[in-house]
C-alpha cells in the first residue's frame, strides 16, 4: 500500500489563523513525532491564507520533521470547509491543533467529538 493510502498514517487537523506567527506549532508537532505515535502523518490545513500561501506558516514545521514521512493537504479556509473536511476524513484523527483566535472552529471540533489544543 502506498504512502498516500497507508492505514498507519496518523491524521492531524491544523487550523491556522491569519495573524499567527510563532514556534509553538512546531513544538507541538515535534512532541507528536517524538511520541512515536506516528510513522507517517497527514496534516489537513484550514487557513484563510489560501493555497499555497499557507505554507509560509508551515515552513519551520516542515523543516523540522526529518524522520517521518508526511503529506500536507489543504482543506479550505472557513468553518464550513472544516465541517466538510471532518466529514470526508474517515476517522483516525490523532490531534487537532488550533493556532490563534478561531472560536467558531473550536465549536465544530467539539461537536465532532475531536479533542483539540489551542496555541498562540
Amino acid at each position: 500500500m502506498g504512502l498516500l493510502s497507508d492505514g498507519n498514517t496518523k491524521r492531524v487537523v491544523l487550523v491556522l489563523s491569519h495573524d499567527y506567527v510563532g514556534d509553538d506549532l512546531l513544538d507541538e508537532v515535534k512532541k507528536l513525532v517524538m511520541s512515536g505515535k506516528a510513522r507517517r502523518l497527514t496534516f489537513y490545513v484550514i487557513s484563510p491564507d489560501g493555497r499555497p500561501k499557507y505554507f509560509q506558516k508551515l515552513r519551520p514545521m516542515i523543516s523540522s520533521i526529518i524522520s517521518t514521512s508526511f503529506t500536507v493537504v489543504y482543506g479550505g479556509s472557513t468553518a464550513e470547509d472544516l465541517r466538510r473536511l471532518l466529514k470526508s476524513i474517515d476517522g483516525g484523527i490523532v490531534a487537532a491543533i488550533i493556532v490563534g483566535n478561531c472560536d467558531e472552529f473550536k465549536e465544530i471540533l467539539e461537536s465532532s467529538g475531536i479533542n483539540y489544543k489551542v496555541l498562540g
Partner: protein
Amino acid sequence: MPDYEVIITSDRTMMSNHHGKEFLGFLTTGPALFLPERMWLWLAAPKVRVDSEGRPVEAPYGLRKVEAKLVDAGFKAAIVDPDYLEKHLGSVKVLMVGHHDFFAYGPPSNEWWLLTGKEPVNRVSFINFMRSDAVRKIKGKGAKIIVGGPAAWQWLWELNFWEEFGVDTVVDGEAEKVIVDVVEKALNGDPLPDYISVGPLDTPSVEEIPTIKGASVNGLVEVMRGCPRGCRFCSVTLRPLRHIPLEVIEKEVKINLMSGVSSVLLHSEDVLLYGGNGVKPNPEPLIRLHELVRKNFKGPIAWSHASLASIKYSEDNYGLISKLMNDYVLNDEQKFLGVEVGIETGSPRLAKSVMPAKSLPYPPIKWPDVVEDAFSIMHENYVIPAATLIVGLPGETPDDVVKTAELMDKLKYYRSVIVPMFFVPMGNFRNRDWFNKHYLTSEHVDLMLKILQHTLYWAEDIMNKYYVKEPHLAPVRLCLKLFLQYVKWRASKLLPTLTATVTR
C-alpha cells in the same frame, strides 16, 4: 506516435549533457557573465539529441528513475525534451518536472547570485520554462503539475511561483515508493496532497529501485544510495545506505553505451565505499566494479563523489587508488579521472561538531592531515578533484576560518579546483539560518581570495593539459579560456566591494 499521458521533463539547464563534460554543468549555477545569456546557455547546457517524439537520447538520471518506475507500473510515461512538449499536448494529463536547483537556492548557485547580484542561469531558465507557451497550454487543458527532486524544498520559499505556475503537488525525497500512487490519483482525478515528504523509513529497498529504460546524462549510473557519514549539513545522509548489485549496474552501463553515450560516471556520495564495510573501503568490490566497466567500455570513467578519508584509507592500506587508476582507469583515451570531494572546513573543532564521521576511520582532530594526504594521493594518481568548502557553517568562529585558510596554503601544490559555498540549511541543519554576504568577515574574504587564486591557477593548468581537448570542442575551450580571464579581471574589481561589505 504513442499517447503519453505522463510527461516527465525539466528546463534546458538540466536537459543537457553539457558537451559531454559534467563539470561544465556547473556553469548553469552562475549568472551569464561576459557573454549574452543565450551564448552562456550554449556553453553550459547545449541542446541534446532527441528522437522523432522529442524524447532525449540522454536525460537526467533522477528523471530516468521516475520514468522507469512509472513505465514498470504500466503508465504511458516518457521523458520529453522541454522544446518538444507541444507535440504531446493532445495526450498529456500529468506533467512532472524535476530539478536539482529549481530557484538557485542550492550551493553554489546562491553564492554566485549573492556575490554578483545577478540571477543564476538555472533559475532564469527554469522560470522561463514554466512560463513557456507549452507549459501554460498543458496547465490550461487541466493537466496536473507535479514537481520534485532534491530541490523540492525550494518551493516552500517561492509560493508566488507555486501559485503562478499552478503546481498541484510537490514531492520531496526519494520518490520510488510514492510516485505511482500520486500519478494514479492524478490520472483518476482524485484530490492530490499539496506536499509529500518521504522520510527515511519510506525510502525504497534496492529491489524497489527500478533499472533505467533510456540513457542518462553522461552515462551516470548509481552504484550506491545514501551515505553513512552523517554530516549534519547534508540531506543525503538522512537516507539509509544501499549498494546497487553489480548486475544492475552493468545493465545500466550497457543501456547507456547502446544509446551512444561515450562515458561512464559512477555515482555515489562516496564511490570508494561501494561494497565497503561501513566507512572503510573494501578493495574487492571496487575492483570488480571497475573491471565490469572496463569489460564493457574503453572510454572515460569518472566518479561523481568520493570522500577524502576513503581516498587516504584505501591508498594507505591497499594501494587501491594507484591500482584502480593504473589497472582500470588510465589508458590511451583517458588521462585523468574527475571527482567531487568535500573539504568543508580546515578546522578540526568545527569538523568534530558538524561532520564528526567525515574523517572516519581517522579522528576529526586529524581532518586537515586527512585532506592534505588525500590531495597528495590524488595529485600523484591523476585524480582531479573539484572540492567544496562551506563558508558560514553553524557554530563557525573566525579561528575556524583561519584554520581553513591555513589548510588552503598546504593544498596549493595539488592539482584541484576548489569552490567555496555559502552555507545552505539542509539535512539536520534544515531549520538553521542561511549564510549571506552580510555575515562575511575579513577572515572569510582572505579565505575566498586564497581559494580563487588556487582555482584560477589550477584551472588553467588543467585546461592546458587535460580538459576539453577534443577538436570539435575548440569553441567551448576558447570560451572557457576567455571566461577564466574574465574571472581574474572581475575578481580584482570585486575585492574592494567585498572589503567594503566587511568593513560596514
